[in-house]
Each structure stands twice: as C-alpha cells, then as structure tokens.
C-alpha cells in the first residue's frame, strides 16, 4: 500500500469493515463539473478488479441546468470523476447507490448558486407536499437523469463530497460569505458538506501565492488559503501518505508525494467556536515562525483542514488502464464514504444523519477517534509551509479517521 493504494488498503488503514443495511434511506452525493465526467467502461473495469462478484456499477446522475447527456464526453478529462466515483462508490460497497450532482455548464459562481437554488426554493420547492413526493430519492433507477432545475424537487444527499475548489483571492469576500452561508443551510438540513483542502500546500489552489495587495501571483510570498475550505460551515479534508517501505499498520504522514496537502488560516472568515481550543493549542505549542505579513497570524481566523485521509498512489481506471493518482481529490470522497457508512448505521437504529460534523469531531467526546498525524509539512510560496504536529495542525487537521471509534461515538 505504500506504492499503490486500493480499496483494500484503505479498509485496512482505517479499519473499515461495515456492510450497509440502510441503503434505501441513505444517500451519498459527489459533485462533478462538466466537461469533467466519468467513463462507464472505466467504472466497470474498476468494479471487476476490486469488488468481488461485481462487473458493473454506475451512479445516479442528477444533472443541473441543462439535460445534456454528459456521461461520455469524448476527449474531455475524466480523471477527477473516475477517481471520485471509483473510490467513493467502492468503499460504501456496491449496495449503496452514489449520486453525482453534475453541474453542466462548467464551474462558475452562477452554476453553484443555480444548484443551491434547487435545494432552497421559497415558492414551489418549499411546498412540503413536493418534498414529500420525492421521499424515495435517491434511487430513481440506474443512471436516470434527474433535473435539479425545478427547485425543491430533489433532496440533497446526506453527505456531499466535492473535489474542486478555488482560492480566497479568486473571489470577493461578499461572494465567499454568501456561498459559505449556503453550505450552512445544507448543514441545517442535516447534510455533511466535504471539500478537498487543495494540493498546493500553503499557496492554496493553483500554486499562486499572494502579493501584498492580495492578488494571486506566481511570484508572491503571501499564503493564499483555499476556498471553500476556509468556510467554517464545511468540513475540509487534507491528504496523507504511507511512507516508503511502511505498512498500513504504521502511522501515515502528511502527503508530500507529487502534491502537498493544503492548509492554513483564512483571510476572510473568523475562527469558529468549535475549533478554538484545538487551533489555539497548536498556535501556542507550535507557533509558526513566519512573519505576520505572509499569513494570518492573528489566531482569530478559520483554520483548515479539519481532518484528512490518504491521498497518494490511488490506483484508478482511466481510459481502460490503471494509473496512479494523487491529491486531496482522493481523500475527500474516502471521508465521504466513511461518513456515509456511519449515517447508514445511525439510520438503522432510528437516528438521524450526522449532518454538519465539525462541532462533534473537535469536541472532547471524539477524542481518540482520529489517528494523529505528526510527520510532514505543506510547503509553498517559497517556504516549508506548516508542520504536522501532535494534535490538530494546519496540514492534516485532526488526523485520519478511525472508523470503529467514529462509529461508536456517533452511535452513542
């Protein structure tokens, strides 16, 4: 597993041994952006290889905006979608249907807000009868296209993982705040919203650091946090790796192979109450030596990521061949699959989905539910970045999940 990660490696790493029993009540969604899309033949190749007795698996597709047949866009990239789905779906086992929310006109602010309009309509969509009519969602049939355009006709999945992101410097504070508030609304509805933390260390997405003016540039020196990872209403997922010649039974370190897991401190959002103790402990015990001019050293801003999972050497079927893929793109769907199984167990005993998890995972009640990562860093902007340290750190967050312990805590 230090050379090639497969579903079996992840099960061993995080002690994931669970067979879903509440699949008709449960749901897991993964966001993709056209033209990025999955390829069915690659899904089947992955299934045949890694899921015993399964030759074919396919997600539900909920298309947003335009009803375009997006499943097989020839010539467009599909690394991301193939990766997200092959691992997200395999880990929750073939019994749990996974839904893709496919934003069809690309990944613009317009598309995002159109998508959430589908969830929170005050007119037709707010009609409880319409919501009730859709109570059987999300299993409308194999690959059936569902239109999210008509507001309120689709319930968001219990867990939604997104492996895309921007940097704070790309969008205005007002836009970031509004988008973040929309995630807060999803949390109110019991939806767990996960985002990859990014792959460029402290530089944020795109390897662009900031100038003193706040503009991203390749020659800047100021850390550029990833958005929406800095939104306090989402759960940001960093990446780890198994060190060379180590096994799944030894501690992982922060991912420094091909990519550097992003993390740091927001320039937009204040520190939420739930992480104050953990982050301030880090700042007190392991104060970063960088000047305050290149990072938000106030100790009052939202810090990320919240947790992490392996993000190195994923074996992914792409264009009929297996390839190795790296990134927090991989770790977020894995965390999503784990939380989906926890939801399954809760639903089986009559409990509700876990919803917004940050206040829970940072609480003392969840102490010991994560494997603390204490090695590695997240270089960028001409610096060594931050260090992984005992306890929460701005590289791997609280650490990687210990599935049995998380399950136990959430069932108590």
């Amino acid at each position, binding site marked *: 597993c230090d050379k090639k990660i497969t579903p079996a490696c992840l099960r061993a790493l995080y002690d994931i041994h669970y067979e879903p029993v509440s699949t008709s009540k449960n749901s897991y969604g993964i966001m993709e*952006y056209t033209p*990025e899309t999955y390829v069915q033949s690659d899904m089947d190749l992955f299934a045949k290889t890694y899921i015993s007795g399964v030759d074919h698996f396919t997600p539900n597709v909920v298309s947003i905006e335009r009803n375009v047949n997006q499943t097989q866009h020839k010539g467009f*990239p599909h*690394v*991301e979608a193939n*990766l997200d789905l092959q691992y997200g779906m395999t880990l929750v086992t073939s019994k749990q249907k996974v839904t893709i929310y496919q934003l069809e*006109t690309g990944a*613009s*602010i*317009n598309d995002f*807000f159109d998508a*959430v*309009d589908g969830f*929170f*309509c*005050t007119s037709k*969509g*707010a009609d*409880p009868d319409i*919501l009730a009519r859709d109570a059987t969602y999300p299993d409308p049939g194999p690959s059936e296209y569902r239109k999210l355009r008509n*507001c*309120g006709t689709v319930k968001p999945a219990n867990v939604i993982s997104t*492996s*895309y*992101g921007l*940097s704070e410097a*790309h*969008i*205005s504070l007002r*836009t970031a*705040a*509004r988008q973040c*508030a929309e995630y807060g609304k999803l949390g*109110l*509805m*019991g939806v767990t919203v996960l985002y990859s*933390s990014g*792959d460029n260390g402290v530089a944020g*997405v*795109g390897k662009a650091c900031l100038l003193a003016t*706040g*503009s991203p540039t390749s020659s800047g020196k100021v850390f550029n946090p990833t958005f929406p990872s800095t939104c306090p*209403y989402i759960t940001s997922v960093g990446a780890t790796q198994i060190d060379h010649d180590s096994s799944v039974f030894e501690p992982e370190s922060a991912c420094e192979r*091909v*990519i550097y897991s992003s993390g740091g401190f927001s320039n937009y959002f204040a520190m939420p*109450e739930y992480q104050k103790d953990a982050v301030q402990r880090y700042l007190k015990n392991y104060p970063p030596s960088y000047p305050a001019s290149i990072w938000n050293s106030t100790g009052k801003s939202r810090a990320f990521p919240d947790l992490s999972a392996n993000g190195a050497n994923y074996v992914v079927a792409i264009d009929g061949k*297996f*390839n*190795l*893929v790296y*990134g*927090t*793109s991989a770790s977020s769907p894995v965390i999503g699959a784990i939380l989906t199984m926890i939801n399954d167990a809760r639903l089986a005993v009559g409990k*509700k989905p876990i*919803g*917004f*998890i*940050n206040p829970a995972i940072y*609480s003392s*009640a969840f102490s010991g539910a994560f494997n603390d990562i204490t090695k590695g860093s997240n270089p960028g902007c001409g610096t060594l970045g931050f260090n992984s340290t005992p306890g929460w750190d701005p590289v791997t967050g609280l650490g990687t999940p210990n599935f049995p312990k998380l399950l136990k805590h959430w069932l108590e």
Partner: protein
Amino acid sequence: PYVLHEKRSSAPYGWSRARKLSSTAIIPLRFAIAQSNIDKMDEYLYDVSVPMSPNYGNHWTAAEVAAKFAPSHDSIDTIHSWLMHSGIQPERIKLTQSKGWIKVDATVEEAESLLQADFRVYTHETGKEHVACESYRLPAHIAPHVDFVIPTVNFDANLAKPSDTTSDPTLYELPDDGNGPKIVGTVDPIVGLAGELKD
C-alpha cells in the same frame, strides 16, 4: 449618491485585462439579494450540530430553511423599483424561485450605467476569456439590499480540482492547459454570447 460596493486591486495570476466589450453585448447580471437572519447562522447551526445540544440532530426542512433566510419583500421591491426607474423594462427583471436573486440580461451599456463599472474582457494565458470589472458601485439606498452582483470582480472561471497524477510508468498526463495541472476547463458566464463578443 453611489457608493463603492466591491473592488479588486488587480486580476489574478495568469489573467490580463484585454479589450473593451461592445456596448450592445449582453451581460447576464445577477443581483444577490441580502438574506434575512443570515447573521444567526452560527446559532442555528450549532443548535442542531453540537453533540451536547438538546436539539442535536433536529435538522430543518428545506421549507424551514427557505422561509428563515428568504430576503425581505422590502429588499426585493427596492431593487426591482431601482432597476425599473433605471430604464429596465419589468419583463426583463426576473426573480428566481428561491427569491434570492434578481436576474437581468443587460447590455454592456446598461450594466455599466447601472453599476458605474467598466466591463472588460480578460484573457487568460491559455486563451480563455472572462468578463469582469475592477470595481462597481451601487446607489447608497440599494447597497444594503444587495450582497453582490455577478459577473463583476470575481474570477471563478477557473475552478481548480485538486488532483494530480504520477510520474510512474503508468503515467496519465493531464492535458496541459497552461494553468497548472489542476485547472478544469470552464465556461465563461457569458457563454452563448460569443457572437456579440466578436462584434
């Protein structure tokens, strides 16, 4: 009087300010109407998400969420009225079903007049184009009712996907779009208006 609503000091890395837009080109303006009770989001969310809370797990319905945060009628009416008095015909002013947005397909001339902005086409080094402005202003009595307007100062046209592939012999090369290996090709907010842009 107009007041500055949002401003960007310079374009993000890789983007450069290019040409002026034709005054007759169409910009799909979207006004994000200020929402009610949004300042209480922490309180509401913690109430259902903190394990020790008596309401832990008592999640809201979509209808409850929509009702709690819906913009006020006053905000909607004020923006609507301003647009009409600015010469936008009522049938061109669309309120989304969520009531969170007002949409107007405005000409560049109208948009620049409404927002006191200078819209330009920005070009990425890869050749992608994006329409934006460096700043925009709103009438002082409108500003409190609007969170922001798009497309204006945001550069969301390149969402990045944080994944990468290996230098292993089984390497799968991501197409080099010149913007780093993690940038997804995207569609500009004015997609479909290429004809007008060319003019």
